[in-house]
């Protein structure tokens, strides 16, 4: 458009052609716009509406009940446990994944021989489906009361018996604080830890790949200059590398958190939400609400809550990204 203003004599013809181009483009885009409007945003809206309806049995009843379903959900001990577990799972998964991913990336980047082999090895778990991960790690983390299996068996045969634990069968919550007004005890259900570790195993390779790309984009000159100025390697990492990796970290946090908020398959196959509801997250409960209890409205409410959680995270990121791009131009 700026170009048009610069050449006023040709502006009329050009803008006519442009508007025709624009119309064609718009018409070409229209089918997919309509499809997205209906099948994505339309149904998100429909889900939000159902979540405020009385559709709580197999009989379809879309009469409006306001926020009743939400209030009911938040009052349930089970849903409170879900939220607690989700927060704990996400925090553990996120922190360990970032630290591991960064450490792996730094190691691979340090000019080790056979770099590409290591890169592939670390990235490989990402190619495996969460279902497979869940089944395999379930076996690893089943304590085995009669005879140890999985990790406990390994520890036993290595003479490290003191490391044996109850893993996914652990029913305790640490440090088991009661909070007035909440029906659940805080903070960390120990059974969540093995599940988070399995998720870390799967996703830390992805984190490494992102950091590796970030590391490669930092010009060597900057680091060299710092070294010439007498910085130690730690100072280079602390004051140059890490700050320059900040955008990568932010993207990784966004991607990992939204993967973690939506986790379903891994937990379903690894623990099924047990013991008790110690590892259950909202997505599992949503499935049960809809398909076992036929309570569509409450399931839709859980879906809406998850959508809000994910968008609380992604929308500011998208806005930030747009601003950053605009600033670059």
């Amino acid at each position: 458009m700026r170009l048009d203003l610069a050449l006023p004599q040709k502006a009329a013809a050009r803008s006519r052609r442009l508007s025709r181009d624009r119309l064609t483009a718009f018409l070409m885009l229209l089918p997919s716009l309509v499809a997205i409007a209906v099948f994505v945003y339309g149904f998100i809206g429909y889900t939000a509406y159902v979540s405020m309806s009385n559709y709580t049995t197999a009989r379809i009843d879309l009469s409006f009940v306001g926020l009743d379903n939400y209030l009911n959900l938040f009052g349930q001990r089970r849903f409170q446990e879900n939220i607690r577990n989700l927060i704990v799972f996400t925090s553990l998964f996120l922190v360990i994944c970032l630290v591991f991913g960064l450490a792996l990336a730094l190691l691979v980047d340090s000019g080790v021989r056979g770099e590409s082999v290591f890169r592939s090895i670390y990235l490989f778990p990402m190619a495996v489906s969460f279902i497979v991960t869940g089944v395999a790690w379930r076996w690893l983390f089943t304590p085995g009361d009669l005879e140890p299996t999985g990790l406990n068996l390994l520890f036993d045969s290595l003479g490290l018996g003191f490391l044996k634990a109850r893993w996914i069968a652990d029913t305790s919550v640490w440090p088991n604080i009661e909070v007035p007004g909440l029906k659940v005890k805080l903070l960390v259900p120990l059974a969540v830890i093995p599940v988070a570790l399995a998720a870390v195993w799967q996703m830390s390779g992805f984190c490494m790949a992102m950091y590796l790309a970030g590391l490669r984009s930092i010009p060597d000159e900057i680091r060299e200059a710092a070294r010439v100025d007498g910085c130690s390697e730690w100072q280079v990492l602390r004051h140059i590398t890490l700050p320059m990796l900040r955008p990568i970290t932010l993207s990784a946090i966004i991607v990992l958190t939204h993967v973690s908020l939506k986790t379903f398959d891994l937990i379903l196959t690894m623990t099924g939400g047990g013991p008790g509801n110690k590892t259950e997250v909202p997505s599992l409960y949503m499935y049960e609400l809809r398909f076992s209890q036929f309570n569509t409205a409450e399931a839709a409410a859980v879906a809406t809550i998850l959508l809000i959680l994910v968008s609380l995270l992604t929308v500011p990121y998208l806005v930030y990204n747009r601003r950053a791009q605009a600033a670059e131009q």
Partner: protein
Amino acid sequence: MSDFNQKLTRRQALKLFGMGAASAALAACAAPTAQPAQPAQPAQPAQPAEQPKPSGGKLEIFSWWTNGGEADGLNAMFEVYLQKNPGVEIINATVAGGAGTNAKAVLQTRLAGGQPPDSWQVHAGRETLSYVNAGQLEPLTQFFTEKGFDKVMPQFLLDQLKINGEIWTVPVNIHRSNVLWYNPKVLAEAGIEPKFPTLDSLFAALDKLKAQGKVIPIAVGGKDKFEASHTFESILLATFGVDDYIKLWDGTDAMWQDPRAAEALSTLKRLFSYSNSDRSAQGWADAMTMVLEGKAAMTIMGDWAHGLGISKGLKVNQDYGWMPAPGSDAFMWLSDSFGLAKGAPNPVQARAWLEVCGSREGQDAFNPKKGSIPARTDPDLSKYDDYLKAAIADFGSKPLVPSAAHGASTTNAYQSKFHNTLEVFSSDLDEKSALESLKEAAEANNR
């Protein structure tokens, strides 16, 4: 995150946009063949000649019988059906996994999308309530009379099948829920006679086994989500007795206010103290395997555990024994059944299917393979093994009570909460909060 909802509505929309014409055509085809209302002729149940016979066409049967004896049994019933109704193309719509959980999910999507299969598997009894309330099933009381099924099934069962005064599904088989399986060798070595008529005698045996410390006294699972509630229902029956046990499932919390409810939870907690502590990580089959391998002395499980014993090449009453779960010798039943979809695409073929489901021939083809007993009291005994013969005898003579963990006396909505409450109890052993949850859950048994 709203994938399920989207899929569901997408399906509806698809149907509206694309399938509109097709479903109209289907409806037009189905309409003329639909069976006209008939006057009841209970006098001649053996002469269903006035019923239109399907000639060709299709029949879609929806179930979660995908492997082992279940699938064999289903196929045996299909064979009987095809002998009687040659030329019908049977669509065997099965969904594997999760003791029917996955199948129920798919079924829900289809029902919400207005594309029901002709007939689907459902636990007989109160579990059909949600389908009845949603207007998704046709009543079959008259069909029962016409075919004479009401004369060959126990009155107890017929009464417990009724919802709003009508029968809605045809039970194909009966499983017994309240069975205690034990390892005779282990008990003999421990010097225990396998006879526990009361809970006290059971606990005396458990004490002895625990003191000797050689095996797990009683194995309990939890991985499949229903093991704790399954064990609990047998204890409830022992604690409440037949009549009051049935009242527990009336959709109110009246009976849960009774002090016996708290007592039953304490008993269960005590029972857990003799069990493996990794309950949540073991399934019922793992628990039964521990018994069969002599690592545990006993377990309480439905008689599908007998099928597991057979599949391992073991002999009942020899390698493993059984008795009614302590405290009551009533027969706690659960049953797989088939109903007729409202708006079924092929109603004539579907009714012929239900006739096979309820017939002696159909049930005798299915049950020996599935490892369950017929819902009829006139089976061909020669086709059943020793355990099943004994179960048939008990089914015909003992008082019948419906299982809660398996839908005979509970709706889907209630079962889900019931299972979860006891799963949590198995992990936390908090009697107060479990009782509270059970009281809260009671109303879910109405929907």
